[in-house]
């Protein structure tokens, strides 16, 4: 490996934390989905790095599967966002507070 494993793990952890921060702080549904994407891509980064570290292709195959599944998830997520926008004329998560207790 050209890049040391530690650097890669640090970068991936930072990305994951940034994505999580985005999910927790943002109130816009689309921004939350983007945060989740960043978190999942940081996992992809670790997989690719670990794949090179262990000299196997398993990790790279998993990244491809991960990308396909994420694409499906985003497609459904955005469809739901459109539906929610039709329902409430807003995609701010703060206004979805009918149910409590």
């Amino acid at each position: 490996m050209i890049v040391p494993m530690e650097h890669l793990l640090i970068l991936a952890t930072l990305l994951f934390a940034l994505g999580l921060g985005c999910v927790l702080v943002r109130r816009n549904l689309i921004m939350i989905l983007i945060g989740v994407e960043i978190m999942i891509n940081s996992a992809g980064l670790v997989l690719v790095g670990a794949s090179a570290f262990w000299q196997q292709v398993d990790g790279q195959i998993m990244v491809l599967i991960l990308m396909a599944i994420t694409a499906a998830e985003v497609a459904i997520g955005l469809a739901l966002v459109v539906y929610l926008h039709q329902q409430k004329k807003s995609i701010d998560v703060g206004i979805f507070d009918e149910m409590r207790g």
Partner: protein
Amino acid sequence: MNLESLHSLLPQILLALGSTAILLGGAWVRNRRLWLIVGALVAVVAALVAAFVDPARIDILGMYSATAYARFCTVLWCLTVAATLLISCRYVDLFRFGGGEYASLMLFAAAGMSLLSSATSFVGLFLGLEVLTLALYVLIAFRQGDSRGAEAGMKYLVFGAVATAFLAFGIALIYAATGTFNLEAAAAGLQTEEGLRPLGLAGWALLLVAIGFKISLVPFHLWTPDVYQGAPAPVSGLLATAAKGAVLAAFLPLLVMTGEGVADIRNVLWLLAIATMLVGTFAALPQTNIKRMLAYSSVVHMGYLLIALIVAGDEGSRALLFYMVVYTLATFGAFGIVTTFADENGEIQEYDDLRGLATLHPRRSAMLSVFLLSLTGIPPLAGFFAKFGLFQAAFRGGYAELAVVGVIASIISVYYYLRPIIALYSPEPAVVCREVAAQSETLVLVGCAAIILFLGVYPAPLLTLVGLVIP
């Protein structure tokens, strides 16, 4: 991929192809009931294939297995989905669901659950869990124009997507630490004291967070009551039973192994179990909505099941499977009764609306009481045997403190399970709900209640079956 692997995956392939066929057929023939019946048939056929067709090989591409245990779980989830489709017959007409899409998504979820509980590698596990979750995202918000359904869908989407991200990162860290996706090898890799062990443990911690979200353990349970309340009642029933059971079932073979690496995980599970039982119980007490109460009840029951997962071994696994079957029957039945009470104004959820319904609907009220009393663990019903076996396993396994907390939670649970029953049998005249249950609904619910009564008197057949399939 050769013919033998395909043959071993036959139930899952049947479910996926059946789902696609119904989706295509639904575009031409807009008949809701027809597609629900076809979907239920496909699920039953898949269950029969899983039960009676011997797999050509046990290990499928190192991703899935076709052991007796995996097949047992497949049968259980397929039958739950078939029952869900049958009790939805009147419900889909009432709220004008697209019948083809509804049945197709349910079958797709069944395929995901069955893949999930037969996974032997993280790749298979991730794939199964995502197939299940993606179908559920749509099913939860399926009632068009219902703002609560939309809210529930939004909440499940956000929590589910974050859980997926945690799962993916956890799997990536475990792979970085151990260099394998195989579940058993990854758990065994934790036991060596090398430099990468902390990385592996961090991965398992993230994995536990994701599982905690999926089976709603405290403190990751916050979405549960809102989603169950907003989702259509049959979907809530599926969410509370099979969707959670499949995740738990995936981790049972893993924790049966003992070892130092797994011991660390067990300590965390111990804390989660106690927190889940206590917080769930106290949150359920003030509820006045039956779907929210059942949501917190499912949180508490996941705490009980966690006890069995911690005890592990033969006895723990047997107690867990028995409990899971009995819990599934009772919780599914309770949500089923809520489904039958729905009319064009919506579902009956508040206790105030349940008042006096027993005079109008004596049979359904009696069945709801049976389901709730079984969840409480009152002796002549199956729930008693399930709890007894579980707490006994905890005592014998040296986890007496967990059993004590469980017993205390069970005793307190009498209060919140009796509240809807008291409302049903109160002498005031009922003001709502004159709907007559459809035949398919009655059939499924009477079946559930009959099995609960039968297993309460004579649990031996299920105990024997469970003893045969444990990994």
